[in-house]
């Protein structure tokens, strides 16, 4: 029975949660959904998440997301969170079709934790980026129907001791980015701001301010991106990752950063 023995080893060798669930219960996977054969019109069909910015700083990497989800021209949510810790040393930001993106995030979090428990060690940062690319690739049929998910992935490489940043396209293409990157409908404006504001070896506090300001610029010109909401006291979601792990920046720090930007822009009294 050499065939059976080989099959046993194959089963035992799989450490991937998504492979396991694909074999056991494929309907539970985010990619198992079928949006039907209508033309691309996903923007009006389900809430969309927009604008994630990410940048490196001295000793780590930072990711920030605004709080708005839109459905066509309607604001679907003012509270949505688009940046999540993937595990202790990495974070994930999502732009695109919100429902599918949240499911992919959840699957990715379980995937990393599952690997860690089965193997007794953490996955390498490149390994994590490749697993995420595979999940985005599995979503390609839905992306072609208008329900695309475009993540941004950042983490601390514990062997090289640096923060690294990866972007993806809907076909699962994985691209390592330098210095900073942004995705989503407001990303062109955020990118322009990042180019001017980012400097090598930023401190963590300065990096937070740069991220908030670039999101402010994105919200200023892109209607699908939400700016700092002083009425509801809603601020962007910001995570930093360094040698000590991922940390969510407290609301108070973000409120200060946002109010500082609003004040400086009111003082200058400029139109654009």
């Amino acid at each position, binding site marked *: 029975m050499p065939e059976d023995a080989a099959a046993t080893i194959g089963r*035992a060798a799989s450490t991937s*949660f998504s492979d*396991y*669930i694909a074999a*056991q*219960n494929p309907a*539970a996977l985010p990619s198992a959904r079928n949006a039907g054969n209508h033309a691309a019109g996903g923007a009006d069909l389900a809430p969309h998440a927009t604008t994630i910015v990410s940048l490196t700083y001295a000793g780590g990497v930072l990711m920030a997301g605004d709080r708005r989800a839109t459905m066509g021209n309607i604001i679907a949510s003012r509270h949505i969170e688009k940046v999540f810790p993937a595990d*202790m040393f990495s974070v994930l930001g999502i732009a695109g079709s919100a429902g599918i993106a949240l499911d992919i995030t*959840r*699957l990715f979090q*379980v995937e990393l*934790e*599952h690997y860690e*428990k*089965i193997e*007794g060690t953490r996955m390498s940062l490149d390994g994590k980026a490749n697993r995420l690319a595979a999940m985005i690739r599995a979503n390609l049929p839905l992306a072609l129907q208008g329900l695309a998910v475009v993540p941004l992935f950042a983490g601390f490489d514990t062997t090289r001791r640096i923060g690294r940043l990866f972007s993806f396209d809907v076909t699962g293409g994985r691209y390592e980015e330098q210095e900073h990157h942004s995705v989503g409908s407001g990303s062109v404006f955020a990118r322009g701001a990042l180019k001017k504001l980012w400097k090598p070896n930023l401190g963590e506090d300065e990096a937070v301010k740069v991220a908030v300001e670039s999101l402010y610029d994105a919200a200023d010109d892109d209607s699908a991106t939400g700016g700092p909401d002083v009425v509801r006291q809603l601020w962007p979601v910001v995570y930093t990752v360094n040698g000590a792990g991922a940390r969510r920046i407290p609301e108070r720090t973000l409120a200060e950063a946002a109010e500082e930007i609003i004040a400086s822009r009111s003082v200058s009294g400029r139109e654009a």
Partner: protein
Amino acid sequence: MTQQFYVSPEQLMKDRADFARKGIARGRSVVVLSCREGIALVAENPSPSLHKLGEIYDRIAFAAVGKYNEFESLRQAGVRYADVRGYSYDREDVTARGLASVYAQSLGAVFTAESKPFEVELAVAEVGASMTQDHIYRLTFDGSIADETGFIVMGGQADAVVEALKGRWNADQDFGEGIRAAVDSLRYDGGPNSEPRAHLGSQTLEVAVLDRSPLTTRGTVRAFRRVSNQELDVMLTPDGAAL
């Protein structure tokens, strides 16, 4: 044609149980105990990488004695069970009771139907918000399941270790005191009539804890944490600092 010998079911089960017990008795003991700060798991294990203790889920840990390949496959199956359940429902829907009954069914099925029973004994521990909400389940090779309070000892000479631990353990201990009591009791596993062994060092021990409130102390929902050798050395000195 050879004649099939008749063996009574009683004899068959007894032989299998004796076989499994003999296999388990070859290994060193494992102690799982509840204390004020959470649940401590202490095993005698000279290997730094082949673990007898493992994380299953947020508040659930696994401990085993016996044959490594058998309990390792059970541990992995447990992680898969918990992760599938947590992913399909919610993280709080994963409980030690559910996991323990799945283990009991698998062990029972293997014991009666397969040609050889598993030579393992398992513990599934779930830490609660207070000590009364802690669950420690003990599973034996034949699929028997027991819900224990306080502490359990598994392995070949568990009775002698239990006797030693009874006088050393109490519910108010912190991790340092509880782990010291467990390590001290493991020296008595030679049986009731033999001399206790010399003091056990951190090099031959594997220790892990389930923190009672990991969210406030470490900012994560995952309560399982391995205790490093350096940390263990500090804990094993009687007046060493608590962790």
